């Protein structure tokens, strides 16, 4: 089969030049390029892995720059929080904030507040038009959809 395929393939014919001539590589590489390539590639791969690890949110780094009030919030919390208690006291923090700071705070979506650790879920009352049973059924459906997606990806 392979011999038949080769026999039927068109051959590139340029008068006066052999196949060896035509296939000779005209491109050059810098000296030692391939000898140094593997370590360079492995370095690139490792640095990509490190970048993935470092994308985990560092709450301090997220909050401090550019949002002036967040530094104030944590400073007040640190000074007023009871000894040995690491829980953010929402009411105390809010009470200590200026009107401007509260305006900025209010612009945050609920999920941002939770994600940045500014509040805990106990501090937030969620208003819902759905009954508890409806919510549970919705969540179960979502979970099933997610599992189906995972199964597809794993080809199970």
């Amino acid at each position, binding site marked *: 089969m*392979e011999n038949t395929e080769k026999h039927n393939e*068109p051959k*590139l014919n*340029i008068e006066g030049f052999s196949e060896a001539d035509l*296939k000779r590589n005209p491109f050059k590489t810098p000296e030692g390029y391939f000898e140094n*390539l*593997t370590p360079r*590639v*492995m370095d690139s*791969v490792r640095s990509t892995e490190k970048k993935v690890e470092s994308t985990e949110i560092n709450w301090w780094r997220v909050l401090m720059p550019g949002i002036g009030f967040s530094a104030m919030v944590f400073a007040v919390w640190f000074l007023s929080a009871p000894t040995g208690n690491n829980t953010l006291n929402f009411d105390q923090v809010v009470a200590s904030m200026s009107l401007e700071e509260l305006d900025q705070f209010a612009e945050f979506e609920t999920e941002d507040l939770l994600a940045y650790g500014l509040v805990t879920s106990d501090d937030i009352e969620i208003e819902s038009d759905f009954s508890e049973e409806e919510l549970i059924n919705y969540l179960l459906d979502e979970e099933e959809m997610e599992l189906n997606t995972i199964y597809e990806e794993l080809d199970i």
Partner: protein
Amino acid sequence: MTDDQDKDLLKRFRDSSSRNMAFNELVNRYQERLYWHIRRIVIDHDDADDVLQNTFIKAFKNLDKFREDSQLFTWLYRIATNESLTFLKKKKKNVFVSMDEVSHQLSSTLESAPELSGDAIQLKLQWAILTLPTKQRLVFNMKYFDEMKYEEIAQVTGTSVGALKASYHHAVKKIEAYVKSQF
């Protein structure tokens, strides 16, 4: 590389204790072939180097998901091809512009040697190949220079064997006609 060697490498890659060593071996084995495949597409060495790095990074991230329904090499080739084409699209560069290196070498060589040497004809051939549409150029390179089977090229490009044969046939005729017109 045999299927058994591929399987062994994949097994070692999937073990976290030998992962990096296995990948190091993979890079060592395939770097040159992939480099030249990419280089023939993007022409410039620095660009080829960038694309090759990206190819291996992508391969590292996705090797766990490799289903082994094709050979490891054709899978890598496919990534390299996609990365090269993506690179060309991003650069939004007419490929003739990136022929600066080739055209420069060609004109220098022709000036210094009135009779065409082997090097000059190779450059002229590269120029002719660059006149082909990108995907046809890919097919020609893989068939002619890499001597891949049509079935392997089909796995890389997702095109049928019949279409590839027609494309290659057409490419050969076009190149011959172009080179002949330049003499």
